[in-house]
């Protein structure tokens, strides 16, 4: 297993090289003036365009610009992100913990509810619970995330005053920046507990409820559908009929036999969903004013913030490789027939 994992990890630098070459090549197909636009935001600065191009070497040949960038990356410097207003490494360290927090808060209910609903839906095919489950899936798929987000915000913040947007309130802000609070991980839920601040923990949790709920509802749909179809396939197989014929209780048949075999596609989708969440969720972060990585990278892409986009591309590529690796490991754990070959 260790050999398999090391082999997969050894592929990572090649994947990253490919991704960066592709992205850098795409960016370089744009004119230097377009790439300089990140530094020229106002018509008052138009006259300085040539000087900006010269200063940042935007007119240099592709290989020169790429080797300059990769040289900096190898020395640990990912450059400065104009959209994040800080070095890329700092930006990743600043935004990523918030994204992890939101992703985990959404991913737990996505997995629990998604697998449960998918299973129940398959077991009770064409019964009312199946219809409910399909209704949830269809609306989750089709409802635009900004509509759902604003609806939740209007009801639970505007009407009921329960779950505000942002990451924490002004009261927590005073504690967090009061001087006696250590940001150990950058994740407010974890740091508040480590700092013995249950009030901040509850406050941060309140702020996470709506974005997590919104993400859960929208993202869960795919998992429900996959679990349902995978379970239906397994439940129709001979070994399930045999298990039932020999008198095994239904919950054992479903939960132990069928579901275990239905896990493979679910794991594949779950790993992709989790990595997607970690890559950032633009609309949800925008609606709920949540400072995650999605909002940053979207701005970086639109404004041609090349160091920002390249930094996040390196991060997400790494996450995808690791996510696939984790999925492969999970396959073997749930199905011993699969070996690391």
């Amino acid at each position, binding site marked *: 297993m260790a050999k398999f994992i090391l082999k997969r990890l050894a592929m990572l630098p090649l994947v990253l090289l490919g991704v960066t070459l592709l992205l850098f090549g795409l960016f370089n197909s*744009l004119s230097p003036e*377009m790439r300089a636009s990140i530094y020229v935001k106002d018509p*008052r600065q138009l006259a300085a365009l040539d*000087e900006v191009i010269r200063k940042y070497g935007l007119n240099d040949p592709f290989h020169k610009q790429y080797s300059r960038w990769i040289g900096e990356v190898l020395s640990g410097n990912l450059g400065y992100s104009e959209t994040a207003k800080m070095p890329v490494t700092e930006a990743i360290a600043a935004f990523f913990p918030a994204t992890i927090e939101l992703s985990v808060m959404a991913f737990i209910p996505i997995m629990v509810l998604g697998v449960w609903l998918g299973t129940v839906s398959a077991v009770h095919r064409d019964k*009312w619970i199946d219809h409910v489950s399909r209704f949830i899936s269809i609306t989750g798929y089709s409802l635009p995330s900004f509509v759902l987000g604003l609806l939740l915000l209007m009801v639970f913040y505007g009407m009921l005053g329960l779950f505000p947007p942002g990451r924490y309130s*002004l009261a927590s802000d005073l504690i967090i920046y009061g001087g006696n609070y250590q940001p150990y991980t950058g994740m407010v839920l974890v740091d508040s507990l480590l700092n013995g601040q249950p009030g901040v923990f509850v406050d941060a949790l309140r702020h996470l409820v709506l974005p997590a709920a919104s993400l859960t509802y929208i993202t869960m749909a795919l998992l429900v559908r996959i679990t349902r179809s995978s379970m239906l396939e397994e439940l129709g197989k001979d070994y399930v009929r045999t298990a039932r014929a020999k008198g095994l209780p239904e919950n054992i048949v479903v939960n132990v036999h069928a579901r275990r075999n239905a896990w493979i596609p679910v794991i594949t989708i779950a790993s992709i969903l989790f990595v997607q969440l970690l890559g950032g969720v633009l609309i949800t972060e925008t609606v709920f004013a949540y400072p995650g990585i999605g909002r940053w990278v979207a701005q970086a892409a639109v404004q041609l913030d090349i160091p920002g986009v390249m930094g996040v591309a390196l991060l997400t590529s790494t996450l995808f490789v690791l996510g696939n690796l984790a999925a492969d490991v999970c396959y073997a754990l749930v199905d011993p027939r699969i070996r690391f070959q």
Partner: protein
Amino acid sequence: MPRFKTIFSLISLLVVIGLVGACGDKNSAAKAEKKAAAATKSKNPDTYVHVTISDVDSLDPAWSYDTQSHMIIENIYDYLVTYKGGSVNDLEARISNKVPSQENGLLSEDGLTYTFPIRKGVKFHKGGEVTPNDVAYSLQRFMLFDRAGGPSSLLLEPITGLTTTRSKDGKPLDEAYTKVMAAVTVDGDYVVLKIHKPFSPILSILASWAPIISKEWAAAHNAWDGTKENWKKHNNPDKTAEGFHDQENGTGPFMLDRWDKKTKETVLARFDDYWRGPAKLKRAHIKSVDEFQTRKLMLAAGDADSIYADYLQQPLLKNLPGVELIDDLPRIDMNPAIFFVFKIETKGNPNVGSGKLDGKGIPANFFADINVRKGFASAFDYEGFIKDVNRGKGTRAQSFIPKGLFGYNADQAAYPYDIDAAEAFFKKAHGGVLWKKGFKFTLAYNAGNQPREVIANMIKRAVESINPKFQIDTRPIQWSTYLDLSNKSKLPMFILGWAPDYPDPHNFAFPYMHSDGNYPRLQRYKNAEADKLVTAAMTERDLEKRKAMYFRLQEIAYEDVPTLFVLNSVLYRTQRTWVKGYTYNPIHPDAPYSCPLYYLSKE
């Protein structure tokens, strides 16, 4: 089972209708907001929260050239002089004890030497008192910093006569250092400023730019130490190279508590030793929230004291309990404006079609014919734009000088919306070939800018209605591409605007009318008389003569029609009624959404 499915389908339909209804029902949404607003009292009476859409770029006064950064800088630093209340013409003393004038003897007869008596007892946030050396250093650093695309030339040019501190190959010029250091000197308790030519707006520039910083603190935080040996190292530096980027040691009423780049939030804390006495507010949070509905809900819930909102959003903010809209606040800007390019770059340019006047494109000199420009000028419904897009707010712009600014001529002729006249001009254009063959080109606007999109489509509809052979494609283009194409003169027409650096007609005349100005350079427009007048008016000290020059320049703008000026715009401010002490001054950065926080309080 089929019966169950029918019932279930009906229930599903009702739920969907209910959800959509909850989203779309304005009454229930409004009720929710009213309930929230009515039930909420100021949650944090000492803390002011402003929620906007942009964030700070840099807190270095010599770097920042955007309104959001400038708005923070204005509250943490002091200037030599500042604007009095809501006036853009009257100045009052700050770090300088007096506003120099010939009456008080602090401005020389020839208008070239300004003497600033430096106030004593003004404390920096991190210790120490302001000295004349600090003041001189502040001005010198502002000019010698000179980052590409930055604000340094605002002072550098009128003071030294140089537009840049670098040669064409980007190397710092010794001449720049010599001239700057000779222009700003210390004489006992005074700082003496000698300018290149008489330039009356210099005090207005000093009221908004080059705030006072500590020389000692600067040197200790990677900034220039004031010596000749080191100035080149600090010329056009990287954004984060110097401590001023995200730290400060100013003398203003507020100190920087933190600039949280992650949440796009700037937090200011009151400076209790402020020389004019402490501010009423203890803290101020300036947050960035992109989504308007979220900002509105924060305002309704009392989590925000004021928010950014434009006119298209105004109906959604009216009648919110506890919220007031301060409307019809005049701006000093010229935005939007529609530019004609006199010599279009047609090579490899899909925006000009065939590149010929054959009905399938336009030639490079399409807009060089004045009848084409006059035709377009007569085919735009200025009043209709103001009525429909700006909800009737603002007035028709007469020319490039905004209403309310010195030099504005209310009687200046402007082309009315007259389709018949437009037709007559088009018939005369290009010797009648244009009318016979027709034309086709692309009118682009920067993506996401709704008013500019409407302008493009209004022009398209009006011009195409005159002759079926006239075709205009309208197209949104990303800002980066827009910049690229307009800079290469590849957009036959483009729509942009201008916000002032200081309230003086020169700050509009140069970018709109001088051949080296920001826009004529892209338009490839040159009028020798206009060039001479712009330069002469800048230094003219006789106000009547100066006014006459600007009147003539506006006549030239009417005669040549290089640009269409659309609107003298107004804005509105949205705030909770418990916010007191707000004074509008259009020259404040990001006004009316933000203001000097010193005067604000919450009740």
